C-alpha cells in the first residue's frame, strides 16, 4: 500500500475537499474508488464507526471526516499553502464557517434535489440565504483564506460543482444573488489543484437526477 491512500467516491464533495488539500500541498497519494453498495474490507476496517468515505490512510493509519482530514493534511504537511492561518481568531472563524458549509449548504443542497412544491421553495430560500452569508464572509477577498486557498475555500470549493444543480432545481442564479461568490467559484476552478478534483457540473446534475429518481420525494 502506498504511504498515503484516499478511499473516496468520484462525485463526493467531501472526498474532493481531501483531494484539493493533497494537491495544494503537493502530496502524492493513491486514490481508491469505493463501491458504497459493496463496501470494501479496508473501508469497513478503517472507518468502523461511520463506514463512510472519505478516509485518508497515512502509513496505514486512518483519518476520517473530511474537515478533520483537511486539518490533518495541513498539520502533517506544514508547507505552503497553510490552509489554516496562524492567528487563533482567524482559525476559529475558518472552522466556524466550514462547519456552516456542512450544516447549511449540504443540507439545503440535498433538499433542492429531493423535495418538491413548498418544501422545494423553502430549500431555495434557505440556500440563497446561506450562500449570502458566505458571500458576506468572503467580503472583497480573492479567497476566504485571503490571497491564497484556505481552509474554508477547500471546504466550499467542491460544492461549486453543484451550483448548476442547485440553480436548475431551485430556479435561481447564484451569480444574481451572490456575484462575489460566483466570481470566487470561477477563480477556484481556474486553479489546477481545485479543477483536477471537481466533477464536471453537467455530470453532477446527471448524478443528482438519478438520486432524485431513487430517493426523491414523490
Amino acid at each position: 500500500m502506498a504511504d498515503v491512500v484516499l478511499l473516496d467516491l468520484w462525485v463526493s464533495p467531501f472526498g474532493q475537499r481531501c483531494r484539493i488539500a493533497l494537491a495544494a500541498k503537493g502530496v502524492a497519494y493513491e486514490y481508491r474508488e469505493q463501491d458504497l453498495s459493496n463496501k470494501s474490507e479496508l473501508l469497513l476496517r478503517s472507518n468502523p464507526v461511520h463506514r463512510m468515505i472519505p478516509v485518508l490512510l497515512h502509513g496505514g493509519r486512518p483519518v476520517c471526516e473530511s474537515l478533520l482530514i483537511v486539518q490533518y493534511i495541513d498539520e502533517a504537511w506544514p508547507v505552503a499553502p497553510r490552509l489554516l492561518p496562524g492567528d487563533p481568531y482567524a482559525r476559529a472563524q475558518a472552522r466556524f464557517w466550514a462547519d456552516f458549509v456542512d450544516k447549511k449548504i449540504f443540507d439545503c443542497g440535498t433538499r433542492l434535489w429531493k423535495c418538491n412544491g413548498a418544501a422545494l421553495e423553502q430549500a431555495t430560500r434557505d440556500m440563497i440565504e446561506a450562500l449570502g452569508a458566505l458571500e458576506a464572509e468572503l467580503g472583497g477577498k480573492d479567497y476566504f483564506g485571503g490571497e491564497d486557498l484556505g481552509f474554508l475555500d477547500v471546504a466550499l470549493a467542491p460544492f461549486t460543482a453543484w451550483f448548476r444543480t442547485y440553480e436548475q432545481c431551485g430556479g435561481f442564479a447564484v451569480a444574481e444573488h451572490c456575484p462575489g461568490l460566483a466570481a470566487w467559484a470561477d477563480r477556484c476552478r481556474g486553479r489546477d489543484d481545485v479543477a483536477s478534483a471537481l466533477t464536471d457540473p453537467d455530470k453532477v446534475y446527471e448524478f443528482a437526477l438519478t438520486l432524485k429518481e431513487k430517493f426523491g420525494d414523490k
Partner: protein
Amino acid sequence: MEEAAAKMPEQPAVKLIGWLSPYVHRAEVALRLKGVPYELLQDDMANKSDLLLAHNPVHKKVPVLLHGDRSIPESLVIVEYVDEAFHGPPLLPADPLARAAARFWARFVDDKLWKALWVALWTEPGEAQVALATSARESLTLLEAQLPEGKRFFGGDAIGFLDIAASGVALWLPVFEEMAGVTLLADETHPALCRWAREYAADEIVRQCTPDMTMMLAFLTPKRGMFMSTAKAMAA
C-alpha cells in the same frame, strides 16, 4: 501547536454568554484550565438577549465567547480557540494523528452519541425504547474504548479536548437519567467510563463551573414534554 500562534495579551476582557448548558460548561472549563479570568453573562435560550443575537446572528445559540472585540460561537470552536489563544497546558495533543482522533471522537459525541442517548432517554417505554437503549449503550461502549489504558482521562493524565467534549456525559447524563427514570450508563456495563465520569466530575477545576445539579433538575424538569417530542421527531 509547535509554531508560535499569535497569542493575544490577556488584558482584553473575556466574557462568555450562556448559562446552565453543557455546551457553555465546555467553554468555561477550557477557560479555567487555561487560567483565563472571564465574566459569565447569563443568557438562557428562552430569553435571547440583544447581545447574543448581535454576536451569533447565524445560529443564535449559546455559548458565545467574547474576547476583546472578537466573538466566537460554537462550543468546540471556542475550546480550540481558547487552547490556541491563551498560554497554559495544551488541551489538544501535539501529534496530528492524535489531534484528528480527539476531534473525531468529539464529533462522535455530538453527532452520534447524544442523539442515541436522547432518543433512548425520552422515548415512551416499550420495545422500541429497549432497542434504542441498547443502541445508546453501544455508542457509550465506542466512546469508552477511547480511554487510554491506565489513565484517568481521555487526554491522559490531564483533562483534554475529548474530556471536555464528553463532559455532558459525566455531568448532565445523570440528571437526564433521573428525570427520565432510565439508566443508560452504569458500572455493570461501562466500568471504565463510569470511573472516568467520577474523575471528571470530582476535578477541582471542573467543580468550579459545574452548575448545582438540584437547580439543573428544577430547571430541566418542566422541559420533559419538549424533550419527548424532540426525541419522537429524531427517532422518526
